[in-house]
């Protein structure tokens, strides 16, 4: 594969470095990376991979660009809001580098399609946002023997490593099991510093480019932790677990499994915000809550979000006790009335509701969909965030 004059000009800052040179650039041209997700991590990663001249870049996503993405998903612009992320990403990457091939896959990654999607690619770049897909990407990479340049972010903290290389550890060696749903908040619930995925996604792209060229020391067997607030990078040792169920000496996982089930997540059912569609014992809906407020029923509305979220908007009559403070401030929550707990989307409030039941509260309900659903269904003047 020979470089054209146009390519020599474009990649000249690579070509003049002996570590890359024509040979390295030709490897990049022959190379291929599949980005799982065109979001916070996938955006900067795909941009740099395209700029660097990686010959084929694939992107798997099925989402649409939203205003709340633009604070960090730098591959998309304001005019792209409402477009498919794939169409938006493809246009941007083509504008950046028309000499490479962009393949897009408008689908949710699943156990059924993962192996076929991964097969044509050299490297998989994991920029997903949930545990079932993390384990799915890992297992598919191990089964196919393809390196996974991994990155993950939460608020001000990022993690990165290279998994599933020959002889190297995999994600399951690090975390054999996922946390139960609700215990770890998602980005949508927890928030994320906009530049953080820029740092972590760029580290993932760096590792992918190094692996393709076969230069330097890859982030294999090392777990990089980045704290943006303290501006500290730390490195932890990561060992291949001989008892790992996927990459160990006697693997028990030999094909892709049901990852939703593995992570204890029920397959997402279509959400219907009407009374009766929820488990009446433990959940309630915003419609029911509105009826109660209008009827001046006796109940205690507990908001377990953080004070800064409370400032953005609140449901009338609520009392704010952030989730982390609930154990210390449980005395402020009455025991002789119905408790309705809410947060932004229903995750943290489910944790709080379970805690209150443990503490002997008998009539506790979680508000399904949280204040987001309240804004969608009841009062659109409450801003969504």
């Amino acid at each position, binding site marked *: 594969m020979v470089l054209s004059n146009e390519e020599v000009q474009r990649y000249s800052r690579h070509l003049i470095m002996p570590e890359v040179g024509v040979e390295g650039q030709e490897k990049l041209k022959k190379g291929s990376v599949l980005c799982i997700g065109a979001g916070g991590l996938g955006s900067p990663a795909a941009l740099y991979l395209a700029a660097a001249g990686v010959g084929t870049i694939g992107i798997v996503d099925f989402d649409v660009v939203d205003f709340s993405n633009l604070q960090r998903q730098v591959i998309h612009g304001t005019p792209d809001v409402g477009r498919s992320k794939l169409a938006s990403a493809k246009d941007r990457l083509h504008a950046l580098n028309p000499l490479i091939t962009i393949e897009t896959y408008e689908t949710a990654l699943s156990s059924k399609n993962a192996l076929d999607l991964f097969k044509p690619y050299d490297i998989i770049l994991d920029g997903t*946002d949930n545990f079932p897909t993390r384990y799915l990407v890992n297992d598919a990479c191990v089964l196919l023997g393809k390196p996974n340049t991994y990155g*993950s972010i939460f*608020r001000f*903290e990022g993690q990165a490593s290279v998994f599933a290389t020959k002889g190297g550890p995999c994600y399951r060696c*690090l975390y*054999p*099991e996922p946390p139960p749903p609700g215990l770890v908040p998602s980005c949508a619930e927890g928030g994320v510093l906009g530049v953080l995925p820029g740092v972590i996604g760029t580290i993932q792209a760096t590792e992918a480019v190094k692996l393709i060229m076969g230069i330097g020391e890859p982030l294999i067997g090392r777990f990089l932790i980045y704290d943006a607030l303290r501006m500290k990078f730390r490195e932890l040792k990561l060992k291949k677990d001989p008892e790992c169920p996927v990459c160990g000496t006697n693997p028990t996982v030999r094909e892709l499994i049901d990852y939703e089930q593995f992570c204890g997540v029920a397959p997402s059912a279509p959400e219907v915000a009407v009374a009766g569609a929820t488990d009446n014992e433990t959940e309630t809906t915003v419609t029911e809550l509105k009826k109660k407020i209008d009827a001046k029923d006796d109940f205690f509305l507990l908001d377990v979000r953080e004070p800064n979220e409370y400032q953005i908007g609140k449901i009338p009559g609520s009392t704010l006790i952030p989730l982390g403070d609930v154990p210390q401030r449980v005395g402020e929550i009455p025991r002789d009335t119905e408790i309705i707990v809410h947060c932004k989307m229903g995750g943290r409030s489910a944790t709080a509701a379970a805690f209150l039941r443990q503490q002997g509260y008998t009539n506790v309900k979680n508000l399904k969909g949280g204040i987001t659903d309240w804004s969608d269904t009841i009062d659109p003047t409450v801003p969504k965030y």
Partner: protein
Amino acid sequence: MANKILIPTPLRPFTGKQDAVDVEGATIGELLANLTTKYEGLKPHLYNEQGKLRSFVNVYLNDEDIRYLEKEKTPVKPGDTISIIPSVAGGR
């Protein structure tokens, strides 16, 4: 002799927002027991119902995973730093 335990972002709500906490103990197990006595809200995040360390929370003594040392019996020396590293999945 107290050792520093570094608290990751997702668990800071349970330590009064502190990113590091000084705790006494001769082994990792003792340190974590003292930590969760001091900050009770941490307990369900670190231990399961059977009182065993959860498998999605990794504990490191300096840069070594305690699973490959002596697990919770791993002795701690003055100056050692303990890190709690939970799995996070965010990416969008």
